[in-house]
């Protein structure tokens, strides 16, 4: 709240702090709604302007982050390709069915992951791959995974920001995380 009070009173430094804290995340989220990075940048700039104009109306009922992201999603939806509401979620198994036997038991079970916490090269490589794997997730999974696991928001906040049901949020999170696990396993699991 302190930061917002400073912002309301016209403190430019407070704005810079807020921008530094949230801009990159907002850009990432915007990019899941619009066709190009340039449009995402426009949407985020437009959001900041909306934030400044609406600053006196902010009640503090949600966190600043949730408030920012909600404004962003509203604008991104307007700028982006209209999505059908209530998209049906098709089947998407967490694990390749070929890895189970007919009884549904593991035929090709997951191997224990080597702990390479000390290996910085390895850690940097994994981080790079996860980053690009997140980029490759379908947009709705990417939004949820980014907000939950990268930004560390809670499920209620994410549902409120994206205007989706708790059940849909869980399905999207499950699929996104399952894909990421699969990728890490494929690339780094058998060290």
């Amino acid at each position, binding site marked *: 709240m302190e930061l917002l009070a400073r912002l309301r009173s016209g403190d430019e430094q407070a704005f810079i702090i807020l*921008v530094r804290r949230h801009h990159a995340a907002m850009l990432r989220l915007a990019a899941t709604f619009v066709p190009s990075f340039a449009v995402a940048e426009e949407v985020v700039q437009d959001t900041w302007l909306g934030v400044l104009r609406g600053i006196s109306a902010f009640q503090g009922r949600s966190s600043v982050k949730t408030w920012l992201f909600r404004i962003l999603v509203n604008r991104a939806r307007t700028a982006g390709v209209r999505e059908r509401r209530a998209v049906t979620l098709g089947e998407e198994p967490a694990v390749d069915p070929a890895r189970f036997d007919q009884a549904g038991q593991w035929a090709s079970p997951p191997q224990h992951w080597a702990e390479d916490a000390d290996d910085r090269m390895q850690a940097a490589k994994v981080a790079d791959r996860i980053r690009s794997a997140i980029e490759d997730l379908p947009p709705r999974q990417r939004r949820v995974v980014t907000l939950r696991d990268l930004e560390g928001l809670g499920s209620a906040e994410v549902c409120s920001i994206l205007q989706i049901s708790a059940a849909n949020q*869980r399905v999207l999170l499950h699929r996104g995380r399952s894909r990421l696990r699969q990728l890490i396993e494929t690339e780094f699991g058998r060290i």
Partner: protein
Amino acid sequence: MQVNLRPRSRDLACQQAVELVTDYLEDALSHPARRRFETHLAGCPHCTEYLAQMRATIKLTGQLTPADLSPRMQEELIALYRRWKDEPRTE
């Protein structure tokens, strides 16, 4: 000691268990479903490993650091802020 790993019909198959991992971590399973899941884990080292991998995946994702703001973008935003400050207020 002989451990019987063959599933009884009421038990979860591994293929079903992996689909419940997120609901489990989100605490969204009903009480009986949670118990069934945990019973399965207790007898299945592979699904236990799978759960550990999902937790590791979440942790690795959480460790990513967001990209820094480019100087150009920062300049643009400061300019935007100054424009806003100069806007007439209706209060």
